[in-house]
């Protein structure tokens, strides 16, 4: 038993240290196996090759005989379920009467081992020990191969993990880069807004000064041109504000500073700012400013909501049209409506108009530039005030935007 164990340990070493694909490996195994039997026994190994089965090598008394031409037809044994066959052979240089061939079915290319006795019959004891030995070796090789497969898979998995980690790193870097780009974009927009506002201050200021006639009267044409300058400047300012606002909203940098304010006063101020625009189209803006509502809102943003909706209403209402601004309360909610009798909006656009960069084709949108950001910004500003905005509109009849603000009434 000691010798057997020792031999098996040596076989373990061989398996772990030589390539099981090689003939060397099998010769080494044969050598160890043969040490377990006396000199009357020789051992061999079959390989399956393209030309058929081949007794690749055999060993007797520590001497290898290679590529021995094995004369017996064992084709049936190859394909059936038998574990071994016993052959009685003629006398021969190497092989004598009694031969046992057993399958080693772990590898397609390796067929099996054989044991040949030169004098005695192969006893049952020898037979069963040989079969057990081949079985053990078979398992050991199988184990080793499975281990190899496992190692390959493990390596592949490790490589996949490394690759994934590398990809994650790339994504992380890209994310950081994008964040930096976003920061740069917002900074750029803030700067450009500043640079555009500075000259606009002079344009709007001087034309306002001329329009107010504080430095003398203007003739009719001059007065008309000054109004035109003011209208274009306001339009330009509106677009600058929209670009700045959308960048603030996207960067979550929109500060919301609600305070107690008089909504009537805030609305009236916006109406006054937009006066040149609606007067130019002889539009009547109706606003009852005799009732006061105290609300909790961000002054500038509340005015901006109204500015956006009112300037839109002016834009899409024809000459001599009418715009109504209505304030009311309902169950402690503050409601603000801007109602015009302009060209209206087709139903199919009702959901779209609050999305970014949406332009509706109509007679007015073609003649006037816009960023397509006004209503998306307005919606966000209304949301900041805990409100929601809806519209009712019919083509050629007019549009009403309704905002319901919850809990801002004081």
């Amino acid at each position, binding site marked *: 038993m000691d010798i057997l164990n020792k031999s098996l340990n040596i076989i373990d070493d061989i398996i772990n240290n030589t390539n099981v694909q090689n003939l060397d490996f099998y010769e080494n195994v044969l050598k160890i196996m043969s040490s377990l039997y006396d000199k009357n026994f020789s051992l061999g190994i079959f390989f399956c090759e393209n030309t058929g089965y081949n007794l690749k090598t055999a060993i007797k008394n520590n001497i290898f005989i290679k590529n021995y031409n094995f004369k017996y037809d064992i084709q049936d044994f190859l394909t059936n379920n038998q574990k071994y066959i016993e052959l009685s052979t003629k006398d021969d240089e190497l092989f004598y009467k009694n031969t046992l061939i057993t399958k080693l079915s772990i590898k397609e290319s390796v067929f099996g081992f054989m044991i040949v006795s030169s004098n005695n019959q192969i006893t049952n004891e020898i037979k069963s020990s040989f079969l057990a030995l081949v079985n053990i070796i078979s398992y050991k090789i199988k184990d080793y191969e499975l281990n190899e497969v496992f190692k390959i898979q493990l390596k592949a998995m490790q490589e996949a993990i490394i690759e994934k980690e590398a990809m994650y790193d790339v994504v992380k870097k890209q994310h950081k880069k994008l964040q930096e780009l976003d920061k740069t974009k917002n900074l750029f927009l803030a700067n450009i807004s500043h640079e555009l*506002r*500075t000259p606009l201050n002079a344009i709007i*200021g001087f034309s306002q*000064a001329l329009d107010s006639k504080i430095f003398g009267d203007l003739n009719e044409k001059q007065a008309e041109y000054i109004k035109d300058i003011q209208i274009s400047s306001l339009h330009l300012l509106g677009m600058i504000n929209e670009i700045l606002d959308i960048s603030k909203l996207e960067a979550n940098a*929109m500060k919301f500073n609600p305070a107690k304010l008089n909504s009537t006063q805030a609305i009236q101020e916006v109406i006054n700012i937009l006066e040149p625009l609606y007067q130019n189209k002889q539009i009547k803006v109706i606003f009852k400013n005799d009732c006061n509502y105290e609300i909790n809102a961000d002054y500038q943003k509340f005015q901006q909501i109204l500015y956006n909706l009112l300037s839109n209403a002016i834009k899409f209402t024809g000459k001599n049209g009418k715009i109504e601004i209505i304030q009311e309360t309902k169950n402690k909610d503050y409601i603000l409506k801007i109602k015009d009798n302009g060209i209206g909006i087709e139903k199919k656009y009702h959901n779209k108009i609050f999305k970014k960069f949406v332009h509706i084709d109509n007679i007015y949108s073609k003649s006037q530039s816009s960023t397509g950001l006004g209503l998306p910004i307005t919606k966000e500003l209304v949301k900041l005030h805990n409100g929601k905005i809806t519209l009712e509109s019919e083509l050629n009849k007019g549009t009403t935007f309704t905002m319901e603000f919850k809990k801002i009434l004081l």
Partner: protein
Amino acid sequence: MKKILIVEDNELNMKLFYDILQYQKYTPKKAMDGLCAYNLIKSEKFDLIILDIQLPKMTGFELLEKLKKENIQTPPIIIASACAMDSDKQKAKEFGIEDYITKPIDINNFVKTVKQKLGEI
């Protein structure tokens, strides 16, 4: 006649503020950069300051910081800046300045704010 210091680096905007304030019968005085404004505030007495933020030599906020550090008394201040970022308005508030007008200004609103600050309305 009340004296108003205008701190503004853009010549056209300076002219606009100057002309409007002069028309309103005030005595405006020009400072084209932060350092010049600092020297004038130290040497003369003003009833009001119109202050820009982005200025050469010393920004509006740097000027406010310096005045605060040196404990120099100032008249009421109105900031008139083309910077529309909320963070700047917040910073102005930290200096106790509530009147932050974003350029482009509306002349009527501007005059109204000036009169309010001077306690005339």
